[in-house]
């Protein structure tokens, strides 16, 4: 039966297009990774295996500073947005539908709907006014902006986890005279932990990758890794950018794999 269903769902040419699509998706990325280990200066000719470009990137003070900045912003934004998203998810799930709940959903998902360039322009103007008024020029603006657009990404896995959780366990804890706080601390939170971890990782990846909003919000000398790379493109292209891309790619793949393992695990 399964064999026949499989046969019948075959459409001519579809498998070919699909395999071609996977090749097209991965070929450029693989090329970029391979050529980041190329000894030659040219991006098209192979000059032997070398870590030359990684050494260059490592010795580059600008790259180091940009990496630090990306990490500070990413960790802060992931931490803050995950706390905010956890509270919001607890507020919007597992209770009787209340007035304004749709409004809350729309607000939380708003960063997914508004084009990034529009948010970037809005923050450029708004933070510009605040910068003039307060004189503060620090990383706070970037952290605030990243925290805001990371909220929906942290919210979704946490909410999914909450919705799939068994309410009976919490009821049982309450029946055994646990206070609401004890129930939350000892039952809800441990059960929710994989969702929270997944949300935090997704938020971190999203913050680490952002180009457009960062490009508009940053003050002078506040390049993150992606805006540094974008700036490099104006000058001569070197495989150093490939090396940085490969490292970023590695971080993303590791975090995503962890994310999938966390969300797949339905204990």
């Amino acid at each position, binding site marked *: 039966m399964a064999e026949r269903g499989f046969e019948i769902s075959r459409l001519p040419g579809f498998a070919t297009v699909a395999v071609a*699509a996977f090749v097209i998706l991965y070929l450029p990325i693989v090329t970029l990774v391979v050529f980041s280990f190329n000894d030659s200066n040219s991006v098209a000719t192979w000059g032997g295996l070398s870590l030359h470009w990684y050494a260059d990137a490592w010795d580059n003070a600008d790259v180091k500073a940009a990496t630090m900045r990306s990490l500070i912003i990413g960790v802060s934004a992931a931490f803050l947005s995950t706390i905010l998203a956890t509270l919001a998810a607890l507020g919007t799930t597992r209770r009787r539908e209340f007035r304004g709940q749709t409004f809350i959903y729309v607000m939380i998902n708003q960063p997914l709907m508004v084009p990034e360039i529009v948010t970037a322009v809005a923050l450029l103007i708004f933070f510009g006014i605040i910068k003039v008024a307060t004189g503060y020029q620090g990383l706070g603006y970037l952290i605030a902006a990243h925290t805001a657009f990371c909220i929906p990404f942290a919210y979704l896995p946490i909410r999914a986890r909450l919705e799939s959780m068994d309410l009976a366990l919490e009821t049982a804890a309450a029946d055994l005279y646990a206070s609401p706080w004890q129930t939350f601390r000892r039952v809800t939170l441990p059960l929710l932990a994989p969702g929270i971890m997944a949300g935090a990782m997704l938020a971190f990846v999203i913050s680490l990758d952002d180009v457009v909003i960062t490009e508009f919000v940053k003050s002078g000398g506040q390049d993150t890794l992606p805006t540094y790379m974008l700036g490099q493109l104006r000058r001569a292209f070197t495989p150093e950018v490939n090396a940085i891309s490969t490292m970023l790619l590695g971080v993303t793949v590791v975090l995503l794999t962890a994310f999938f393992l966390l969300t797949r695990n339905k204990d």
Partner: protein
Amino acid sequence: MSPAEENAVRSSARNGWLLSAPALIVLALAASGPLLIVVWYSFLTANDTGGIIREFSLEGWKGIFLTYDIFEEKYALADAHLTIFWRSVWLSLTTTLLAFAIGFPTAWFIATRPAQQRAMWLFLITIPFWTNLLIRTFAINEVIRNEGILNTVLLMLGVIDAPLQINYTEGAVLIGMTYVYLPLMVLPLYATIERFDMRLLEAAYDLYASRWTTLRRVILPIVKPGIIAGSILVFVPSLGAYVTPRILGGGKKMMIGNFIELQFLQGKNWPLGAALSVLLLLIVMAALLVYVRVANRDRSQGHG
């Protein structure tokens, strides 16, 4: 409802709001609220030094379609702007079509794999989906640029004598956007095809429908919600694209996103840039509204 129950409902709603409040405040300050300032700025006067004067003016909005000729002292249609809008719209539409043409067979292929294999194929689509857009644009740039892999291979094989100039053309932007947004088409399509009842195909073939008729009359109508979702997910970011046209199109083949940037970061005309941003936002909202309406209608008709 008893008074006690009513109280419980009310306190539950209050807790819902209180728990959501911190997130809402941050979003209002660093995402939604500032959008209102953009609307306000679109009605102000441009300053020659690249800022604004707080005086009401419609010049920003007029500037979208018209340019003021200081010698003739009258308005003329801004051809350069219209070219950019037209390019943005047709490139986004073509990107959506191409992504569908490649994405539909891909999603069908994944959905018809044996269950154990599906997760693996899906993961292969998800990795590029979450990978930095900038890195993926760099990657495709490595392939299509003059000294890139494609030209090197074609030159070596003797297919061409001189490198093909792909970069800095509309074709390059089209290739780049299709490449980076393809996963956004595949994922929603997969989600609907996965729920498709394959017995319907059996029924269609039993009734002597050809494969083509089955595709057109049975499969496509049923997976329509997925097609619409995928199309919106590709069309919306394409229309507001900034990174991909900047890298692959250069300064010559600008799209709306780059045009907006030009007004702000190069400090040319803030009210015009603000008006363009509001216009882009309105178009995207209209597209999303169409999506919500179609999705609701399909749900009420009991599809899916």
